């Protein structure tokens, strides 16, 4: 191969049709409140973990829904399940269960996370 001194950049576009939303499906089937999130960011604002790291439940939430699983897989482990987010959520999303189910799903279906 010729050496050109650069590589073809990989797009960062969400290819919705190519992504697998199995993990999101797993969660929303077991925790229907997962669907009613409006991405207001209350959870991320009050988050105990977010106080120390760049962890944002809101962001992980939307990435799961779009099937951008790979960026969620490691991050979701940072949550301490303290439950503050559940208390502040204006839509009553059972955020602790969402996190727990997501972790469960990533363990159960490691292939989907890629």
């Amino acid at each position, binding site marked *: 191969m010729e050496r050109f001194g650069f590589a073809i950049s990989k797009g*960062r576009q*969400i290819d*919705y049709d190519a992504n697998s939303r199995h993990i999101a499906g797993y969660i929303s089937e077991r925790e229907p*409140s997962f669907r009613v999130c*409006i*991405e207001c960011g209350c959870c991320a604002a009050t988050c105990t973990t977010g106080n120390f790291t760049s962890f944002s439940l809101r962001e992980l939430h*939307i990435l799961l829904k*779009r099937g*951008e699983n790979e960026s969620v897989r490691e991050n979701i482990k940072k949550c301490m399940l303290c439950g503050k987010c559940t208390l502040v959520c204006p839509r009553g999303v059972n955020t602790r269960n969402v996190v727990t189910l997501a972790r469960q799903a990533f363990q159960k279906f490691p292939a989907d996370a890629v």
Partner: protein
Amino acid sequence: MEKHVVVIGGGVAGMEAAGHLQKSGFRVSLFEKEEKPGGHLNDWYKLFPDRRRSSEVKEYLDKITSEDGIKIITGSIIDKIVSDKNQFRISDKDGKEYSADAVIIATGFDLFKSERKEEYGYGIYDNVITSADLEKMFRSGSIELADGRIPETVGIVHCVGSRDEKVGNLYCSKLCCVTAVKQAIEIREHLPSSKVFCFYMDMRMGGAYYEELYREAQEEWGVNFIRGKVSEVSEAINNKLVIKSEDTLAGKPLKMQVDMLVLMAGMEMSEGGLKLSESSGLNKGNNRFFSPADHHFGSNKSNIKGIFYAGTCTMPMNITETISHARAAVSDVIDYLKDSKA
């Protein structure tokens, strides 16, 4: 002698105003450009937020306008209003003249012509349709693609022709968000195996039970909401529509294929209203709707004494607001004619 009031426009506002004028003891002439009154109500299937049939509201309006003392003149386009010593001479396109003691303008709105958002390909791609086209499909009972197949994925684009400097409309049409949510639910109802995606800039759910409907759409109907306006639409080789937007909440551009794309056409000042404003010296705002004499306490009054506005010719309104606005216009007419008598 019985005073004569002319109402221009036989939609919701015009019919409501006519009915109330008649109840208040006036002789009323109601002019409608189409063959039958009802306006946009005739094209709509069900109404938000409770999804009652629009025909029920139409029946109510028909009932109140079927009284003696209301003359409905259909197929008549009013061209000009001339004020002449407490009297108004109203002439139509064919030169016919009518006189009145007061006038209520209820020329309503036109749906934004979605062809103007070229990047969405309305009129070019087979399966790009508007909210009004979708209502027609609901009325006919079948939601189909151009080739007769049943759509599996449907995209809905909010704010088509609203909040868009590029088409000259800075304002929010107010009703498209809730219409999108209503239609998303209805699509899911008609086609239970379908997936629906709403592309929105903001969810403006400011009416009674709108937010609840939004939640219902998420919770019970699994409608997907993606924050980001669709920037372009194209057709893939499988005849599916490729849409691009940014998922602003994920902070990434997004590409997906849908079978059908529904454009939530916004509201614009009607063409008839625009002509009337020019020919008769009625003031318009920057948004091209009629500009009422006062935004807070004179929203029915025009810049010409004796001419009043009712409904969406002044701004986007829902049916509830339109009916209230029409009744308020009647109350202004009563005050005006009482004063002019004295």
